[in-house]
């Protein structure tokens, strides 16, 4: 089921007298989610991603705009008529019911022509349980399960009524680091197996990057950029997106374009074509550096961190904007521990320029 949002907007009116004005939680969402894809709504806390999810779900009514499931306009439909499955952040499993009864719950609500026989319900419940691999837990109460198991039950409960769209609100935020890694693979697998268009909300860019077919990066209610995770990572359209994606984060320098050259501090690193003269911000991913005695960038090295395969060089530079600068280099090419002044060369294909004021990407050719 294709999911289309058109100018979707949610404005919360100001609360009472004296409080701040209206809050625009979701501002003019305009994008399309292709059928059968896994999509991550990604953004920092309070950027309106959960609100957007609740709008798609129908728990909130939009102030403006439309939502389409396929060709059907569902904007005016209440959540129960949209055919969505929702996994809540805290799972919202009914604590007094067993896992089986929790999964059966949505099926028991079906009325009229959709009404199922008891056997059919059980069959469907066990099918859903099998997908998330919890068949052996059917008689437990939610309180007896671990966080990851509860998560699976919640997904099974959302899947059992065969929703047109599956929505997950911060599905991994309550799990510990190890389980998070496991569960995100699991979500990917379940989504592939069922082929249901899935939207999930997360503030963890690594999570979104690793499993999504498409990510939607948001900032204060607005969509910054949509696209395939790798594409967005490599070609950020704004400084915010560049800084938000990637661990370790992108290194930011204040730079300037002068006489056809790009200067970082005093170092002329590249010659530029197609960029106006003036102050800019240069962003370089940690993997965009190379340790090179003839490199263009003179830096002070602080320390070398060796983490298995990768070696990251932590360094400082007078023109740095980022608090910590970090270059990831090959282990056999790394500088020695006691070196002070080092030179780094920059991969022209990994350097991105942004406007100093607006933060918008400046497209130009570097050589």
């Amino acid at each position, binding site marked *: 089921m294709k999911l289309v949002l058109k100018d979707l907007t949610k404005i919360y009116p100001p609360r009472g007298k004296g409080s701040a004005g209206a809050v625009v939680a979701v501002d003019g969402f305009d994008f399309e989610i292709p059928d059968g894809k896994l999509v991550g709504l990604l953004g920092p806390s309070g950027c309106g991603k959960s609100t957007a999810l609740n709008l798609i779900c129908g*728990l909130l009514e939009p102030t403006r705009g439309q939502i389409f499931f396929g060709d059907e306009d569902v904007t005016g439909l*209440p959540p*129960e008529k949209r055919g969505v499955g929702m996994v809540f952040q805290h799972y*919202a499993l009914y*604590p007094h019911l067993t896992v089986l009864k929790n999964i059966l719950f*949505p099926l028991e*609500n079906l009325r009229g022509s959709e009404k199922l026989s008891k056997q059919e319900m059980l069959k469907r419940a066990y099918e859903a349980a099998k997908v998330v691999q919890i068949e052996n837990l059917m008689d437990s109460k939610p309180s007896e399960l671990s966080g990851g198991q509860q998560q699976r039950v919640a997904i099974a409960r959302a899947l059992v009524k065969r929703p047109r769209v599956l929505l997950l609100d911060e599905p991994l935020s309550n799990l510990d680091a190890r389980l998070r890694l496991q569960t995100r693979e699991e979500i990917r697998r379940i989504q592939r197996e069922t082929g249901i268009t899935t939207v999930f909300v997360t503030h963890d860019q690594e999570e979104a990057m690793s499993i999504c077919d498409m990510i939607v990066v948001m900032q204060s209610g607005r969509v910054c950029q949509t696209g395939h995770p790798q594409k967005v990572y490599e070609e950020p359209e704004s400084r915010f997106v560049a800084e938000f994606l990637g661990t370790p984060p992108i290194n930011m320098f204040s730079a300037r374009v002068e006489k056809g050259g790009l200067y970082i501090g005093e170092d002329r690193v590249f010659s530029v074509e197609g960029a106006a003269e003036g102050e800019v911000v240069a962003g370089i991913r940690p993997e965009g550096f190379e340790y090179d005695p003839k490199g263009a960038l003179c830096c002070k090295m602080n320390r070398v961190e060796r983490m298995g395969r990768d070696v990251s060089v932590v360094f400082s530079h007078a023109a740095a904007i980022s608090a910590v600068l970090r270059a990831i280099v090959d282990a056999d090419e790394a500088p020695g521990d006691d070196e002070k002044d080092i030179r780094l060369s920059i991969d022209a294909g990994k350097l991105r320029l942004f406007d100093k004021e607006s933060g918008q990407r400046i497209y130009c050719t570097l050589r």
Partner: protein
Amino acid sequence: MKKNNLKAWLYMLPALAFLGVFLVYPLIDVFIYSLEEGYNSASQTFFGVGLYNFGYVLRDPYFLQALKNTFILVMITVPLSTGLALLISLALSSVKKLKSLFQTIYFLPYVTNTLAVGLVFMILFKKTPYSEGLVNLLINFFGGQSVDFITGPYWAKMFVLCFYTVWVVLPFKILILTSALASVDQHYYDAARVDATPRWRVFTRITLPMISPMIFYLVITGFIGAFKAYSDAVALFGTDLNAAEMNTIVGYIYDMLYGNSGGYPSYASAAAVILFAIVLTITCINLIVSRKHVHY
């Protein structure tokens, strides 16, 4: 370890001493008095030991009347007040405007003195040579016959007593239930909504189980409170409850100690022990039933 234990007991000593002197000792004493025939508290004498007191009390028509009244009161008011409180709390939690105003109004009876409320009920229900009472005026208005609620037929008096009791216990139950309802996580309702759960099913399958511990608490304390009813009856029918056929078990105990027929601590103790046994039995039954139906 042993020393720690000693310390722990030492810390608990003040509380234990108070409980012992003011709770355990009187309780044991009541049991002893109930077995001593014709105990006289002034001279500290008695004739003999045995179950005579219980036999006397259980054959006393006044006690049987009190027993009957108390049971009727309990069986009517506890389910009725809990059910009503639940309905009102549900209504309260679904209104948005003036919510706190309504909450205050419903809570007012709780902070009002029982006897003052009793007086108001007298004005509402009592028939005097000068006035029929407000309720009778209403009954007349709809074409009914006046009823003497305070000194009239038994069922009318019982009605007033039950009505009054329900009215008095309602606010506390509403308070407890509204807070219980408010503490149910909104996400459960959201989840139920997404799953197209009908309203009635949301209530029976989600709300009710979630607040069942509180309902159970109210039923148990309601039973105990209703079994110990006394002041309500006094407020409505005056101190001579035996004559009004409106006595309760606690009223009977009080009368045996200090009333017109007072000065019988043995009979009073026997009645108290019987009341204790009844309350204990009912509470045990409640606990057994709740095991099956209360969650968590």
